[in-house]
């Protein structure tokens, strides 16, 4: 098991934010974390990344507790992709990707030519090779998200932790980014992403973790777990689920609606 979270409890002061969260992820899985604002998604991610010390329970990466990993060893297992990227300086896309080598390079090292070539290869694979020497403030939000994906890839970690990877993207760009993520997990990466869009969970997740008030309401296959009842109890609004045929595949989709008053 690549990632194993068992009975995780975390609290800021007296208030428990995570109240016994358990789930696991294998290689190649894509776990969507769904939940309303304040459900504890970001706190969960911070615990996964070892930024926060849990009160109880454990997070195991590749069979070992997060706290037993050295900072560098953890970076070789987990890569983090933030929700938005707000750099202070206009580094080029290539330089930004190379920053992912932080754990592999010693304190006094600079990237080698081979590593630069590897970064360019990754950019080409992501379809943004032409932007390599462009400033990272001068590309679109979708391209920037792909760039961050590239940075995570050169880090050589097996698991990608993504905090709302498409939150600030338009419809087309979020589709393109999610397609990339799907392709990556087919290549062996485990992906854990949070999202406010249940349709993304239907469409891209192999499993769904539904969080509310720090508790797991459900964990399992999207088709089985994401019932109208669960979605309503998650978000507090009535939700209808139906099926759509797109090409040769059938997808579940959902939409919220207002209950008509009699």
């Amino acid at each position, binding site marked *: 098991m690549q990632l194993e979270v068992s009975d995780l409890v975390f609290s800021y002061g007296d208030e428990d934010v995570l109240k016994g969260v358990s789930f696991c992820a294998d290689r190649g899985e894509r776990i969507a974390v769904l939940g309303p604002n304040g459900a504890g998604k970001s706190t969960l991610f911070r615990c996964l990344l070892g930024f926060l010390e849990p009160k109880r329970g454990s997070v195991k990466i590749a069979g070992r507790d997060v706290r037993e990993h050295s900072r560098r060893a953890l970076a070789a297992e987990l890569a983090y992709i933030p929700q938005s990227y707000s750099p202070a300086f206009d580094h080029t896309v290539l330089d930004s990707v190379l920053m992912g080598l932080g754990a592999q390079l010693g304190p006094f090292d*600079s990237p080698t030519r081979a590593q630069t070539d590897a970064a360019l290869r990754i950019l080409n694979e992501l379809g943004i090779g032409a932007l390599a020497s462009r400033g990272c403030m001068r590309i679109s939000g979708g391209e920037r998200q792909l760039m961050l994906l590239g940075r995570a890839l050169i880090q050589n970690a097996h698991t990608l932790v993504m905090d709302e990877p498409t939150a600030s993207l338009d419809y087309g760009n979020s589709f393109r980014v999610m397609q990339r993520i799907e392709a990556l997990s087919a290549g062996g990466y485990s992906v854990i992403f949070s999202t406010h869009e249940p349709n993304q969970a239907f469409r891209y997740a192999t499993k769904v973790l539904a969080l509310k008030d720090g508790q797991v309401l459900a964990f399992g296959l999207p088709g089985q777990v994401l019932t109208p009842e669960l979605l309503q109890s998650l978000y507090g609004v009535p939700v209808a689920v139906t099926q759509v045929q797109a090409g040769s595949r059938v997808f579940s989709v959902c939409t919220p609606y207002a209950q008509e008053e009699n």
Partner: protein
Amino acid sequence: MKPEKTGRRCVLILLILLAAVFFLSFLLGRYRVSALQTARLLADRALAGISCGHLRLVPTWTPEEASVVIQIRLPRILSAALIGAALSAAGASYQAMFRNPMVSPDLLGASTGACFGAALAILLGASYAVITAGSFLFGLAAVGLTYLVGRLSRMRSNLAMVLAGVMVGSLFSAGTSFIKLVADTNEQLPAITYWLMGALTAVRLDDLHFAMLPILLGLIPLFFLRWRLNLLTISEAEARSMGVNTKLLRLAVIVCATLATAASVSISGMIGWVGLVIPHICRLLVGQNTRFLLPCSLLLGASFLMLVDDLARCLTTSEIPLGILTALVGAPLFLYLIVKGGARDAA
């Protein structure tokens, strides 16, 4: 890759520029020494230095020429180069660390602390060596105090540190003002005022030896950390997830930049603008990657301050303090960069 090539080429060109400015600076001044004679004198000095005095050139120069070049010009030009390099490299590092291109190396109070130390030493009638040492120690103490307050604060580290720096800085400025108030108006006050404006007039080889060690102790680690400084420009969470020990790296930058800045100020007095303007010019040349930005700032800063000091020496019969000149040259240059550089530098 293209940007990398540009970076390397810029470093090379700036290195050549540095060598040229260094040598030409010896030829300026009221006492004329020919280029050949200067070159021989410098070669002799370098040979003696390397071989511990065993190897010397056959002297073809007069004792006056030797004294002008070695005793007067060499310490001055060397210290201008060192101080320019130190302030610019410290500025570039601080800008990366505080994620702000408008930050100068005295943000945490290094300069104001050093000025207070110098003023205090002058007030107490100390010798030149004690003034230098006092200034250096107070510079370190000011930044130490800032760091401590920043660490004790419950706010997020960077902002707390900047605020603490502003407070500590104004505390030491107030102290300096008070010393000026009570200082003897005939001798001490002019000495303090002159010192605060920054000058290399009085620098001798001994002072240079004193300041060289801390400056190099600061600059060398910064130079080797040059690529890693990039990792301080992204958010702390991201950097940590990439296996970077951000706390340690940040502390290293503060210690190194402070050593270099305080040591510089202690022999030259207040020299503003260099740490802000030079990294900015270098950004236009090589971009944001600190791997090239830092070495370029170091080299260009050294050349810049040597040139400004040449101006200070030659422009008028009485010397103009360096601090005035760097502001006179730096501020308009900076304004120009803000107006013209906008197209390239969106930050």
